């Protein structure tokens, strides 16, 4: 299961598993985002390399327009995957409290 939408504060909300089967759904949604955005990852359990590709493609597009995507409430497992990828230098990240 994977869900993506817009929260009450205008942030992007994601929940579930961003795997290869869900990458297209995520990309379609993120392709409609412009400028800068915050993605609340509190409900996100898992990101595979296919999901990382979606996020990188989105970040490159937004940065070309002077914007960026910031990820908040990132769980420790996903944070490790970002570190191993070098994506902790490409995205502004805030880990989940506790």
């Amino acid at each position: 299961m994977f869900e993506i939408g817009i929260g009450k504060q205008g942030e992007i909300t994601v929940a579930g598993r961003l795997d290869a089967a869900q990458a297209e759904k995520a990309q379609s949604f993120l392709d409609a985002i412009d400028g800068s955005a915050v993605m609340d990852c509190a409900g996100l359990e898992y990101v595979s390399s296919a999901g990382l590709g979606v996020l990188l493609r989105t970040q490159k597009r937004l940065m070309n327009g002077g914007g960026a995507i910031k990820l908040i409430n990132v769980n420790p497992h996903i944070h490790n995957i970002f570190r191993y990828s070098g994506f902790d230098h490409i995205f502004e990240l805030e880990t989940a409290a506790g």
Partner: protein
Amino acid sequence: MEQAFQRTFDSLEEIFAFTQSFFDHESVGAEHRHDANFAIEELFTNMVKYNRSGRSEIRLSLARVDDKLLVSLTDPESEPFDITKVPPVDIQRPIEEREPGGLGIHLTRKVVDSIEYRHKDGCTTIKFSKNLR
């Protein structure tokens, strides 16, 4: 515990249900589950990507021996591609020089403790282990 899965990304949900059942039975902790699922997805989707037209199913086997998780994926319809020989990814490159793709094997090697590749008579078997301590 072993099960065969259709050669499509849509099998991932079924695969994760299969691994969850095994991990629950074997009381595998959350961190190890995450890493094992990650490696399984990357290896499985690679097998799918490099032979989308294949008809044979991909077999996934899970076992626990003492404090070690042993995972095996077998693709009976595959070309040789030794994942242990893939060069490391330079993760320090700036975003302008990064492109989507090419991270799956790199990350798999980061999250498992050992990995083996074998190809014989068109059949690829990849085994990895994960220490559960």
